[in-house]
């Protein structure tokens, strides 16, 4: 049995195990905990896709919230029931074709795929002009574009219902869909990152001039990374819309990008394993810190909630990470089956392998 075949089997077994755990959790845990789990899984999809462009291809984008918004609004428009559409757009009618149909529950995956396509198309449109810029300029251009998307969401009432947003979106995003997309994202992006294309993207990250001199068309590869990233960002935006059952411009504001940035920096820019783990950790931490923002009554003593406290903690965390712990938890390393197995066989194995050669799936 070759190593590759063994790893594939292990991956399949692990995925089956994850679904089993999801089923157990869904059966026994309460609604609130499951909401946190689903949010965590959606953050995995969003963060891993963001890491492809920022960590693997090394192009600093500040725009994933815009692509998530595209996916989110698209999915909302596709699955919102017709009577709800009439209710939401009672002043100005919703644009054609969305006002004449609505996708039912079995077609939810199709809606997500179309949401992903919207994100990918958005990434293509934003990427073609802006990926010629580098560093700070690219960051600002992607930020500018995503702000434009949010301004449009606030103003294009016949499509987005403006600042009020769209309410009453069916909650199709159960734990199985969230898990399926999280696994798909991790599998596709880690496969891609370890492929020849991923190597080309990493070479651009390390040295753009040398990459071009080695025959890599850099613009094409940046754009590929950007579009793939945009697709999964769109899907995650769609999942989030269905989880929260409401979309509005504020849901996809810059703070979404900020959260994702903390996740990928903490996990290690370029490490898919890192992003996956920290996406979950961030979601849980974020919930755990919720109490500081809500009012507490301890007997007669009333402590008012402090708005902004969580973000204050996270901002401080981000700055401290950059100053003291720049490589994050995983640096650019990944956990692979080869590493896990060698760890079981031999306890003195020297740390996590760097950029493993054999296909690895975390």
């Amino acid at each position, binding site marked *: 049995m070759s190593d590759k075949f063994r790893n594939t089997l292990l991956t399949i077994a692990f995925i089956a195990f994850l679904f089993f755990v999801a089923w157990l959790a869904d059966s026994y845990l309460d609604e609130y905990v499951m909401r946190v789990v689903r949010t965590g899984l959606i953050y995995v999809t969003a963060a891993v896709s963001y890491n492809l462009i920022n960590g693997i291809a090394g192009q600093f984008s500040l725009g994933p919230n815009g692509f998530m918004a595209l996916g989110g609004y698209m999915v909302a428009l596709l699955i919102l029931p017709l009577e709800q559409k009439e209710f939401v757009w009672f002043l100005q009618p919703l644009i054609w074709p969305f006002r004449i149909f609505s996708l039912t529950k079995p077609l939810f995956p199709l809606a997500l795929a179309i949401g992903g396509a919207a994100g990918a198309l958005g990434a293509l449109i934003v990427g073609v002009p802006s990926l010629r810029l580098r560093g700070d300029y690219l960051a600002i251009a992607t930020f500018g574009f995503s702000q434009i998307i949010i301004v449009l969401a606030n103003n294009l009432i016949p499509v987005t219902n403006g600042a009020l947003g769209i309410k009453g979106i069916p909650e199709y995003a159960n734990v199985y869909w969230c898990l399926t997309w999280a696994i798909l994202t991790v599998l596709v992006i880690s496969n891609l990152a370890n492929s*020849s294309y991923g*190597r080309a993207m*990493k070479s651009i990250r390390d040295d753009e*001039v040398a990459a071009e*001199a*080695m025959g890599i068309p850099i613009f094409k590869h940046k754009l590929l990374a950007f579009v793939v990233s945009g697709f999964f960002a769109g899907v995650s935006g769609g999942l989030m819309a269905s989880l929260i059952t409401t979309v509005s411009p504020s849901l996809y504001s810059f703070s979404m990008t900020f959260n994702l940035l903390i996740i990928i920096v903490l996990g290690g820019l370029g490490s898919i394993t890192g992003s996956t783990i920290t996406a979950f950790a961030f979601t849980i931490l974020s919930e755990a810190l919720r109490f500081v923002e809500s009012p507490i009554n301890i007997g007669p003593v009333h402590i008012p909630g402090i708005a902004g406290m969580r973000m204050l903690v996270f901002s401080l965390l981000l700055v401290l990470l950059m100053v003291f712990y720049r490589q994050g938890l995983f640096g650019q390393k990944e956990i692979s089956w080869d590493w896990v197995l060698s760890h079981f066989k031999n306890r003195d194995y020297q740390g996590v392998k760097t950029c493993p050669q054999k296909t690895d799936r975390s």
Partner: protein
Amino acid sequence: MSSKNGSILALDNVTVSFGGLLAVSDFDFTLQRGELVGLIGPNGAGKTTVFNIITGQYEPVSGKVFFRGQDITGWRPDRVTCAGIARTFQNMRLFEGLTVLDNVLVARHSKLRSSMLAAALNLPSYVKEERQAETKAMELLDRVGLVDLAHTQAGSLPYGQQRRVEIARALAADPEVLLLDEPAAGMNPEETMRLMEFICGVRDEFGLTILLIEHDMKLVMGICERIRVIDYGMSIAEGTPEEIQGNPKVISAYLGEEACDYA
């Protein structure tokens, strides 16, 4: 104007300027297939600029570059490399976060036929191609004596080994013309000796045409069949190593200034 007398690489009256400052002016140069030519000159003479013009990093203000008779002026660097001109860099631009093997494999990427989808889904056609690329890269690493270090991070290697990785990487692009920018920089005399043998060896083995920039006169005089000297972006002499060593213009412009290098 077409290429001159069936040469493999020709620069025809090339001029490059930065903000009005002429870096290279009216530069004419030809390389015949299979030659090993040295490009020398004092620091800042415009040697690396000549490389950058050939490989498309800079676009000349005027003049043309021909490769195998085809006008490649203004081509993007990746296209030039795919056409068959590979290079190394003076300041060694390795992909430091990648392993030695991955560094070499990056140069094979342009040969890949599988689509990104095939790669992301690990389809058999892609896996087969990847395996072939890996075999080829390992052969090249074997040639430069770095097989054992294939899975080491490139940035962690000592200087001399990094230079060898860079040459292996350039060779992985299957070039016909190889441009080496100060390959012996930072090497000790013994390493330089081995490098000289290596350069001559790969030229014969892969049927390469080599143009190299070097300050180490022992290396240049030892292996180059022909030497071009430039100063202030202009050619001042060309000839065999013996002719160059005796050329008074060269001595005053170049050797006078860096006599210690020559000694």
